């Protein structure tokens, strides 16, 4: 899998000279040297490295305007400097000589009113062309297999922002889902797939996004794939995203959304159609449990939480901790889905953990689920997160005054042993991602 | 531009009402009109907010009644008419003062204030009726916007009544003489403005049917 964020040094350098491909002339490159210098190294959010048709269009438009602006800037600042050097005097002392008192020149004035207007009018034409293009909804069709039958899916994902993570809802049988079919962001129809923090798209297809929010305004932004679009509660804003090549594309919430705004990130994982089909299959299936856990799960579904002997495996003990401590907010399909109204709904407003271990980030996209060095589970960060979420990501989930809304993950006061146990259980949720993906999605 | 002649206040040859200003018009009156221009944006904002929200009932079975459901047009028509007529009495008060007829001035000032009070009384009655019928300020966006807009207007009318009563008292004390016409005129401008705002509100908020 191509991983834009792990480019080698040479790739980065060649990428830097992308400008050249677009515009011959070393002078321009030199002019933008400052900008380029900042682009060296990893910069997964870089808007100057577009990786999709849409992002390319925006980039090209902006690029030419940067050039025009640069020319004007050099002209004006050059004129200022030139005048400063040429016309400078050190004192008026004793100097009764005045320069020619030219007060106006209407022809000149009209010229420099009209010329910029014409330049802007030309820019405006291209702006409108690009604007129309990036807002056009092109029908796309992806053939996918759901429950063994082939469906034609117009790829559409409902994106729901909340403090401080993103939820992605896939409606695979809706054919052509439209924003008008949705009503209340806090009570969306059951979806086939509910992912959080990371979402998969097939490459080479335009994927429609319908963006909304459950609480305050957020903004969904994957810079290399497209511009941003706000997630406004009560509104469903259409947007789109596409990736030319498989890879992992980083994003960050860009509308100030309160306390942990800076810690609200997400990633788009672009996959080949075959990989995407595998991802769907995996996401569509409920969690599976090994022979040791399964009896507990069955009895839980029948009669609620049971009890676990002290000498049981860590995962089983963790399962018990999960159902008593975590299940009131988090859903694991196949375990506590019956506790919620409608089997496929997402729980309350906490991430769906059914396939947690298949993700590579957690806590709203800010922490790595696996260690990059050896691919092992990142137990330290997971434990720290469960131990005191507020310390990792400031929130409003504990010590609430009357009527205050809990926002974020509360501190459940688990013992260290309980924390270890629940981590052991969480590790069982979902197939482990490939090492490549772990490397590519690493958050530094 | 031609060089201006200097108005020489020292000559006092024409005893104009106003001091010499660049435009020849009164500072105070110009300030009032400027202020009224600004008020257009204020009421415009509130009216637009209401128009935007007028059918937003909010979710759920409760609190979904909106003001347009229960407008009592005949009642509001009467109070609108009352406010409209108060503009007439206001202008008659000014006219009386110009003539130097203090008794008539007071009578018209008082009737203007009375008509304004009747309007406010009507508004209070309307508000309490709304609240009784379950359309309270906090119930849904439509009602919040309605009460804010009409309440804001009501506060303007009330302030106008205070000004009118102050003029009345001043007149009683013999301090309101024909040389004070501009003072009355300026209060009148404010009063008429509040009236024209209501002309707008009455049509756009009350009379234009909601689909």
């Amino acid at each position: 899998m191509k991983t834009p964020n792990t480019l080698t040094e040479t790739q980065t350098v060649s990428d830097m000279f992308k400008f050249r491909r677009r515009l011959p002339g070393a002078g321009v490159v030199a002019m933008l040297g400052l900008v380029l210098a900042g682009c060296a190294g990893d910069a997964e959010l870089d808007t100057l490295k577009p990786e999709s048709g849409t992002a390319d269009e925006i980039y090209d438009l902006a690029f030419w305007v940067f050039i025009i602006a640069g020319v004007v800037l050099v002209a004006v600042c050059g004129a200022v400097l030139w005048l400063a050097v040429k016309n400078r005097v050190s004192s008026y002392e004793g100097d009764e000589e005045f320069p020619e008192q030219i007060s106006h020149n209407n022809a000149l004035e009209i010229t420099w009113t009209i010329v910029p207007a014409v330049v802007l009018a030309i820019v405006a034409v291209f702006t409108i062309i690009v604007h129309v293009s990036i807002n056009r909804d092109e029908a796309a069709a992806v053939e996918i297999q759901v429950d063994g039958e082939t469906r034609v899916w117009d790829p559409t994902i409902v994106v729901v922002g909340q403090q401080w993570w993103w939820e992605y809802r896939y409606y695979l049988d809706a054919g052509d889902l439209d924003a008008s079919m949705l009503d209340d962001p806090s009570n969306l129809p059951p979806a086939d797939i509910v992912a959080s923090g990371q979402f998969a798209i097939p490459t080479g297809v335009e994927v429609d996004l319908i963006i909304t929010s459950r609480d305050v305004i957020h903004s969904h932004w994957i810079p290399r794939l497209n511009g941003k679009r706000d997630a406004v509660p009560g509104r469903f804003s259409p947007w789109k995203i596409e990736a030319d090549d498989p890879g992992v594309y980083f994003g960050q919430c860009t509308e100030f959304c309160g306390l942990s705004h800076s810690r609200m990130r997400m990633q788009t994982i672009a996959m080949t159609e075959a990989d995407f089909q595998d991802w769907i299959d995996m996401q569509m299936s409920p969690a599976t449990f090994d022979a040791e856990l399964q009896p507990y799960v069955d009895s839980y579904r029948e009669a609620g939480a049971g009890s676990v002997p002290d000498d049981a495996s860590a995962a089983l003990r963790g399962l018990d901790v999960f159902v008593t401590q975590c299940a009131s907010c988090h859903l694991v399909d196949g375990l506590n889905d019956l506790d919620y109204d409608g089997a496929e709904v997402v729980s309350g407003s906490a991430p769906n953990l059914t396939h947690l271990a298949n993700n590579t980030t957690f806590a709203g996209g800010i922490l790595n689920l696996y260690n990059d060095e050896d691919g092992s589970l990142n137990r330290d960060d997971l434990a720290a997160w469960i131990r005191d979420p507020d310390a990792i990501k400031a929130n409003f989930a504990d010590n609430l005054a009357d009527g205050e809304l809990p926002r974020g993950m509360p501190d459940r006061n688990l013992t260290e042993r309980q924390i270890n146990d629940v981590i052991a259980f969480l590790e069982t949720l979902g197939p482990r991602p490939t090492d490549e993906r772990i490397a590519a999605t690493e958050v530094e | 531009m031609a060089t201006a002649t200097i108005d020489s206040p020292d000559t006092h040859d024409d005893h104009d009402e106003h001091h010499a200003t660049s435009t020849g018009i009164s500072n105070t009156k110009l300030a009032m009109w400027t202020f009224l221009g600004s008020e257009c944006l204020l009421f415009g904002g509130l009216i637009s907010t209401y128009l935007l929200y007028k059918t937003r009932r909010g979710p759920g079975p409760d609190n979904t009644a909106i003001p347009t459901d229960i407008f009592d047009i005949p009642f509001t028509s009467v109070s609108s008419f009352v406010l409209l007529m108060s503009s007439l009495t206001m202008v008659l008060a000014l006219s009386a003062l110009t003539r130097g007829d203090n008794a008539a001035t007071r009578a018209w000032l008082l009737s203007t204030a009375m008509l304004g009070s009747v309007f406010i009384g009507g508004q209070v009655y309307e508000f309490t009726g709304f609240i009784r019928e379950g359309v309270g300020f906090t119930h849904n966006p439509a009602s919040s916007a309605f009460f804010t807009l009409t309440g804001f207007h009501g506060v303007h009318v009330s302030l106008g009544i205070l000004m009118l009563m102050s003029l009345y008292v001043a007149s009683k004390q013999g301090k309101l003489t024909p040389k004070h016409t501009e003072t009355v005129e300026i209060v009148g401008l404010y009063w008429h403005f509040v009236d024209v705002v209501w002309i707008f509100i009455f049509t756009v908020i009350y009379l234009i049917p909601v689909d």
Partner: protein
Amino acid sequence: MAIIEEPLALTSGEAATAERPLGGLTRPQGGNGWRDWLSTVDHKKIGIMYGVSAMFFFVVGGIEALLIRWQLAAPEGQLLSAEVYNQVFTMHGVTMVFLFIMPLAAAFANYLIPLQIGARDVAFPRLNALSFWIWISGAIFLNSSWIVGGGGADCGWFCYSPNSGLAFSPSHGVDFYAIGLQIAGIASLLGAVNLIVTVLNMRAPGMSLFRMPILTWMLLVTQFLLLFALPVITVALFLLMFDRLFDAQFFNPATGGDPLLWQHLFWIFGHPEVYIIILPSFGIISEIIPTFSRKPIFGYSFMVFSGIAIGFMGWGVWAHHMFVSGIGPFSVAAFSLSTMFIAVPTGVKILNWLATMWGGKLLFSTPMLFAVGAVAMFTIGGLSGVTHALAPADTQQTDTYYIVAHFHYVIFGGGVLGLMGGLYFWWPKIFGHMLNETWGKVHFWIMLIGFNLTFGPMHVLGLQGMSRRIDTYSPGFGFELWNMVATIGAFIIALSVLVFFYNVWRSRRDAPNLPAPGPDPWDARSLEWMIPSPTPEHNFDEVPLVESEDEWWHRKYGYDENKRVVRIATIEEVAQDGSAEGVHLPAPSFWPLVLALGLPLIGYGLIFNLWLCVLGGALTGLALYSWALEPVDDPDADHGHDDHHDDDDGGDDDAAEPEAVTSGAEGGE
């Protein structure tokens, strides 16, 4: 209306009637230390108070800026918690916009407008004092939330709902924001009415509108923008306040409220606000550059009309702040186009400044350095502005540090540098001594370098994808280097401000040993330079008859038969000496101050305990009636005139009128 005031006579010798309607209230006479400042209605003293307070809040906002930069210097900054960081960046924005730049511009407007149009004072001197006191009480109220409100507002200066709602911002910070800005808004609105009337009505004979200095013109446009923009933000703040304090349902999406309502109202105000900030600086630049080029401003009428055009077009572009809000592609396209074309009149201004310098004799004094620096820096900000007028490009740039860079180049580069130049330029006129030129140049160069180091790299950061308003960032996104540079730059700016304060102190210390600057130290062009420095209390001994644009310059210089400039008079010959005596001046009053004290009390009452509202309301009401009943003049004060009780003269101004209630009532809204 309102505050029925004696319209000041245009020539000395015009007396006011001095009645004492109730025989009880008299007006203070001033002239004794701090009480003089508290009761003054002199536009110059009010201007100075605006300036000093603005500089105080510049320091406050600057400290907040340094905290932000310290936090962001390196990844995972630990100086501030997310909670405090959000309050700090919010208050930084609010402080710099509402408590620094606007009042500093108001300082120039107050001090200079009457001087530039040849007037004794503004049209309504007491109202002017009221504006200042209301503004300062609003400013203190706003900042008191640090102490009594559980921290500053934490919603950003733009305070988008529903994040500003009670559910998401439960402390009182946002309440203080909503009420504090309303109070400050009342001040600006009253000021706008006052100054508009002043410019239209108080001009010296012959001072037609098209002979007014560009600064007066730009300030006039600014006042119109304030006049019409403030009611819009007032509506928005009102709705927010009702939502938070009285459970209204304006912005709660759960009950059908629309968060975009706030955004539209905020930006309908917010965009004209940008021009409210920048136009005064444009005016100052337009005074400084001709003076130090020894040429008249190039294209006077184009400068005026482009200013008007900017002000006018500023009303049709607000939604460019909302290109990604989901307002619909059609709206986006329309606002994108309108925004792009606002660059045209702005460009006209820049080119006219260059043309003024063209062929001139450029003397790079400190004011000139700041003015030219402002032109260059504003050009950068203006051009980056064009890049996100393009809606598609804006979807990548908005809410990133690119925008932070852009508006700091506009507001700091174009606005603050220009205002700083204005301080150096008019300092001798205001305080009677020059600021030290050497230290001034040191100040300029340090500030220019610090400014570019701080905000230049932010362009790169933004294009690299660094979001705005984040309290920290992770390593590995390529943000480290430029954030560190920006932080270093911020401290260099802080250093330059210290240099400025040092210069102020030092110049004052050295002043007695230096020759007095005289009325016209810069060989400048407009009327304020024909009167002594510092400006005498009565401004002009004799109100000048204006015969041309750049009147003062034309009194010094004429043309010979070859159209060459020759001196026709020395400064001493044509300047006034400030010796006029017995000029009637408006009497001081304490009531503006008392009235202004009532408003924050009402504010605290709304937040904490409604009884305080009663107290505040009573104080306001008392002040209003006392204001109305206070005589126009103190009959005991010696103003050099016998009271001539000519009933036709000024009779309607004798302030016995209850309609002063009107004004206050309106002010109270």
